[in-house]
């Protein structure tokens, strides 16, 4: 699945025809990408389209509710460079090895929707390019992501056993007093498969699925 040999900040892409099996509109041609973070070049982000499959290499940053409350509501500057970063909504299960060093036990991903209000400032103030979580962002995230060149990546919620094997090392931890909602820097290998849930072109799979479902509900109610 992963395309070998990609270098930092570049995406490798190949396109797969979905064929006639899928009845779900809009998603008839899907690409597979391998992407290495951090990414500062917006053109790399614009290659990703809602529905595409993505595997991530490089470095990602773990972040959660309390971490972002500290940055934006309490105005504390994060002690890590977030330019071009891929953020993961997580509160990892870890074992302490000693002085600021931790090893992974079980690392999974939490529901993103609670943290949608931080999308715009993350992009505008810190240059974040990717946000990854489960369950999607509501429509409030579409315009900031389009304007600032950001992507929402959907991970499979609950698939923590797999996710843990794709995190090679916990390289850095900041704000340990917020444990487990610290700022975490992970080195990853073949992280995914992820699905582009919201792209930087203004498309949201969640918006499309919800609109279609609301229409479908009217039809179902009429049958009851």
């Amino acid at each position, binding site marked *: 699945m992963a395309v070998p040999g990609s270098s930092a900040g570049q995406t490798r892409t190949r396109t797969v025809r*979905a064929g006639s*099996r*899928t*009845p*779900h509109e809009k*998603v008839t041609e*899907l690409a597979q990408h391998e992407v290495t973070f951090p990414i500062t070049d917006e053109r790399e982000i614009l290659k990703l389209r809602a*529905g595409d*499959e993505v595997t991530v290499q490089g470095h990602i940053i773990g972040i959660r509710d309390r971490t972002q409350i500290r940055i934006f509501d309490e105005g504390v500057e994060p002690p890590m460079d977030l330019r071009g970063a891929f953020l993961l909504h997580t*509160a*990892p*299960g870890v*074992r302490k090895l000693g002085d600021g060093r931790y090893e992974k*036990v*079980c*690392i*999974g991903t*939490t*529901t993103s*929707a609670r943290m949608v209000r931080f999308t715009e400032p993350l992009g505008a103030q810190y240059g974040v390019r990717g946000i990854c979580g*489960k*369950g*999607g962002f509501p429509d409030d995230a579409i315009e900031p992501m389009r304007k600032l060149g950001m992507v929402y990546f*959907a991970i*499979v*919620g*609950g*698939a*923590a*056993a*797999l*996710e*843990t*094997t794709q995190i090679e090392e916990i390289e850095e931890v900041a704000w340990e007093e917020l444990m*487990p909602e610290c700022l975490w820097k992970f080195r990853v290998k073949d992280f995914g*498969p992820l*699905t582009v*849930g919201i792209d930087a072109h203004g498309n949201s*799979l*969640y918006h*499309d*699925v*919800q609109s*279609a*479902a*609301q229409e*479908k*509900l009217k039809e*179902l*109610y009429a049958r*009851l």
Partner: protein
Amino acid sequence: MSVVATDLQHAVEDAAAYLYVWALKDIPQDLRDALADAQNRETSIPGQRVLTTILKNVAIADDEQNLVCQDTGIAVYTCRVGEHFPLHPTRIYQALKHGTERATVEHPLRSNAVHTITRENTGPNTGYRLPIVHWEFIADWDGLDVKCVPKGSGSENMSFLKMCVPADGVKGIKQFVLESIVGAGGKPCPPGIVGVGIGGSADYAMYLAKEAITRPVGTRNSDPIVAELEDELFELLNETGIGPMGLGGDVTVLQCHIEHADTHMTLNPVAVNYQCWAARRASAHISAEGEVDYDREA
């Protein structure tokens, strides 16, 4: 009597500690079958991607003896206590609490329990009124059945209650379940088990919805009228197109289970409690002599 009670209390405590970890690592066969069946039915590409990843994750949890999901949940137990079981429920509760604590400390497991206002951690997955236990008392029997259901918060947050009026009828129940699951979208980690509680009172309807998600996947209510509603809602929910992880597709739910109670002539309550695809549960049967028989299927 006190000696027997003490031994029994330890047996129940050991069982609880074992069940909590077992449930988190090794999901039941009926759930594995339902997920494999979902993968066969799904035709959307993102949906296929999600289900393939889920099945791979379950296999890795087996191989690495790791947890299926990092959310160790809120510890919920259901207890069926025989009339002649020689340990009072007070002591059964103590044993379940100590077992939960031991599992959390000894494994170790992430501890999620906090005071609901201060948000300070209250202990190793225990606290005031935690764990939560559902009780049922059985006449003419001397055994105890314990089931541990670690309940993840992503799906528990997608719980809904509506006091329909009698004039809303069964149609009102169906509409509310449908709009709840569509509104929840990808947040509760679909495809999972939709638990529905109908009748009784407001609080009891939600209690019944939780009971419903603890049943083996695809079991049916013993009342044929309710079982028919389970079949119908299962079909309707999968027509919504929400799909695996809310990314669109044919499989929105693995099952719909309903528990019901008779109610007041002016009431028509309906409660929805969602259980994520990682619908973890593990059971044990404990005899009056303290013999523990672990059961993967119950």
